[in-house]
């Protein structure tokens, strides 16, 4: 007996339900009308109507970052699809698992320059883990299964499924495959045992060890395994921008974030260590600066990563371990416990050195009673939220201050666009986090430049009653651009001034939100408390901050880790 046939659109919905998708972020349009009609008839997942397709993908992306589940977005063909591209590229650069379903013109119209036609598979090819154009209704279910599998396994990433409109109306039997077997794709999960033993031995022999972890540790849910390893060894730990929360920031072994705006102690320890273990991190240009300068001081490098192509890409690695970070770290802990139970590495001299670097206090800033310092707002945000909020950011100075001054103790709490550096992610990211955890405190730290790149989402937040708190650090400048112009272009502030800003308080109020403007340092803490006390309200907080504040320390582009510029005050 054969199963009854159903439409392609219904198959899409059934697949999403099969994958236990809770939210689909999307925007309807001609090519996806059949799918939207089926959404109307179902209640397996909730569809969230955004105001721009870019925000749909960002929100799905943040939902994934916060929960670890695959995020799902749905957009129409043509402009709907191209609007989604920035969101897809953002997720790709940070290895976030997404399934993005895009509508396409009917199969016979493909290539005819039809209305709202764009070659979505071609456009997204360089910024997806994989993509599909489904040309037969019978292939929808198997393709969806593959899409979810590819997105979430190995090194995660976004997968686009482009579905022509006529296919969603055609009929087929619904058969959802139980599992996927692909001869061309089978990610390595378990690390090589010999390499793992070698790594443990090297770590124990180190005189100046360093643990460096990135976004891969967070995505691989390996924070508990890392904490266990680091505590057993008593070694210093640094996190990349993407890796914050991978190790508790309030722990004494944590030396802060490293990289272009990292702490002095983290960068100096990174440069001067003799054995470095990198976990789910990729030695990128914002992290180690100039690789030649990094190479000057020789060190033995152990690198754990699920993606072999991340290993020895910018920096030559001595002990590569390809595998899922959680499984590899677990095995390292086992080897440590079983074979080196009595090993007590003594690195007191190294800690003494690190503490001397710490004494430089590279993160201390000059506070003021006259004008609000952005760093102070973040410190108070951390206090008021008891360090337990989901903090999203946009891109620029405020992003760095949030990373430097909010001490993340848990993974998946710091949500930002590290790889692509996409301005405009902050508000849709906050939406994704709030949908992931409706009772959580969600703060969107942003700038007046970035927030205007997706400000239309204030409307979405109103529609779904999302009690997000926007922390706008308003310095009337594209701050990071201005900072570079001050340092490297002799103060020629070309187009970095933000003129004709809206009255953000009134703007927020016009959507039914609460708006606040804070101009005095003395009001910062009280205002934050007042805002977070409004548990069911969206509060837009416009902090008028110091216009001239810069992000320190800073490693100029192309310089080495030990060539930091410290703050003016020092």
């Amino acid at each position, binding site marked *: 007996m054969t199963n009854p046939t159903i439409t392609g659109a219904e198959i899409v919905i059934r697949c999403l339900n099969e994958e236990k998708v809770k939210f689909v972020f999307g925007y309807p349009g001609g090519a996806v009308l059949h799918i939207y009609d089926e959404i109307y008839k179902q209640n397996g997942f909730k569809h969230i109507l955004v105001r721009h397709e870019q925000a749909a993908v960002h929100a799905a992306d943040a939902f994934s970052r916060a929960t670890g589940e695959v995020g799902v977005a749905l957009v129409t063909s043509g402009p709907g699809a191209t609007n989604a591209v920035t969101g897809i590229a953002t997720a790709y650069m940070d290895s976030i698992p997404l399934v993005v379903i895009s509508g396409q013109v009917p199969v016979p119209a493909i290539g005819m320059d039809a209305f709202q036609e764009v070659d979505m598979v071609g456009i997204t090819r360089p910024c997806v*883990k994989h993509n599909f154009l489904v040309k037969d209704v019978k292939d929808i279910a198997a393709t969806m299964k593959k899409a979810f599998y590819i997105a979430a396994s190995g090194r995660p990433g976004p997968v686009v499924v482009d579905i022509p409109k006529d296919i969603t109306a055609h009929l087929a039997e619904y058969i959802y495959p139980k599992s996927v077997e692909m001869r061309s794709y089978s990610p390595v999960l378990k690390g090589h045992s010999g390499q793992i033993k070698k790594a443990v031995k090297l770590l124990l022999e180190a005189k100046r060890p360093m643990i460096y972890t990135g976004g891969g540790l967070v995505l691989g849910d390996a924070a508990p395994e890392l904490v266990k390893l680091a505590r057993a060894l008593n070694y210093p730990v640094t996190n990349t921008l993407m890796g914050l929360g991978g190790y508790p920031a309030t722990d004494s072994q944590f030396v802060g974030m490293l990289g272009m705006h990292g702490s002095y102690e983290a960068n100096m320890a990174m440069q001067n260590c003799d054995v470095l273990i990198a976990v789910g991190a990729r030695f990128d240009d914002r992290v180690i600066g100039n690789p030649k300068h990094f190479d000057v001081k020789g060190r033995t490098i152990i690198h754990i990563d699920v*993606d072999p192509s991340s290993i020895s890409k910018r920096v030559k690695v001595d002990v590569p371990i390809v595998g899922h970070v959680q499984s590899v770290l677990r095995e390292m802990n086992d080897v440590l416990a079983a074979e080196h139970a009595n090993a007590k590495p003594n690195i007191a001299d190294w800690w003494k050195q690190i503490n001397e670097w710490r004494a430089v206090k590279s993160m201390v800033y000059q506070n003021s009673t006259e004008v609000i310092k952005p760093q102070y707002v973040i410190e108070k945000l951390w206090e008021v939220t008891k360090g337990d909020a989901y903090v999203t950011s946009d891109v620029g100075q405020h992003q760095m201050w949030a990373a430097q001054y909010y001490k993340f103790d848990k993974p998946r709490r710091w949500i930002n666009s590290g790889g692509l550096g996409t301005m405009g992610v902050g508000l849709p990211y906050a939406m994704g986090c709030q949908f992931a955890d409706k009772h959580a405190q969600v703060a969107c730290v942003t700038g007046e430049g970035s927030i205007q790149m997706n400000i239309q989402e204030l409307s979405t937040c109103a529609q779904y009653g999302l009690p997000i708190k926007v922390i706008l650090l308003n310095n009337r400048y594209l701050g990071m651009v201005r900072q570079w112009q001050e340092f490297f272009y002799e103060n020629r502030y070309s187009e970095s001034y933000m003129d004709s800003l809206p009255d953000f308080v009134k703007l927020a109020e016009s959507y039914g939100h609460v708006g606040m403007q804070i101009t005095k340092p003395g009001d910062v803490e009280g205002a934050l408390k007042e805002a977070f006390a409004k548990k069911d309200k969206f509060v837009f907080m416009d902090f008028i901050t110091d216009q001239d504040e810069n992000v320190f320390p800073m490693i100029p582009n192309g310089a080495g880790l030990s060539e930091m510029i410290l703050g003016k005050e020092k």
Partner: protein
Amino acid sequence: MKHIISLLMENEAGALSRVAGLFSARAYNIESLTVAPTEDPTLSRMTIVTSGSDDVIEQIIKQLNKLIDVVKVLDLNDGKFIERELMLVKVKATGAFREEMKRMCDIFRGRIIDVADGSFTIELTGSGTKLDAFIESLDKAAILETVRTGASGIGRGDRILKI
């Protein structure tokens, strides 16, 4: 250094563009690229001639392996292999040239596959360097047109690329 990379990939629409796109996106050199289905129609075999330092070649192999449609990748330069390329050359063949062209063709073990009033078309198979040598040895003014397939390669003996 020049490397010949062989790979097996799913014979699906767009698979070729994923490989070509990877090379341009990551600024890798591509000297030639040939692709055709294998005896198993679900698989295509591609031969890519590229060049770069050992580090670059290592990254190329890793990045190719990362493409979801790619089933297997082999750097032929890791062992013994045979390389062949086919070239068709149309040359002037008038008067004394006619005999000269015939002789050059014989020396290089080519075949004349088309004879016209003023020209010959010569078919020549061999390694890229042999084909280069043939071109070098001809009078430039005599060459009317050349077309080359790009190299195909296969491992010697029991070096087999198969799934």
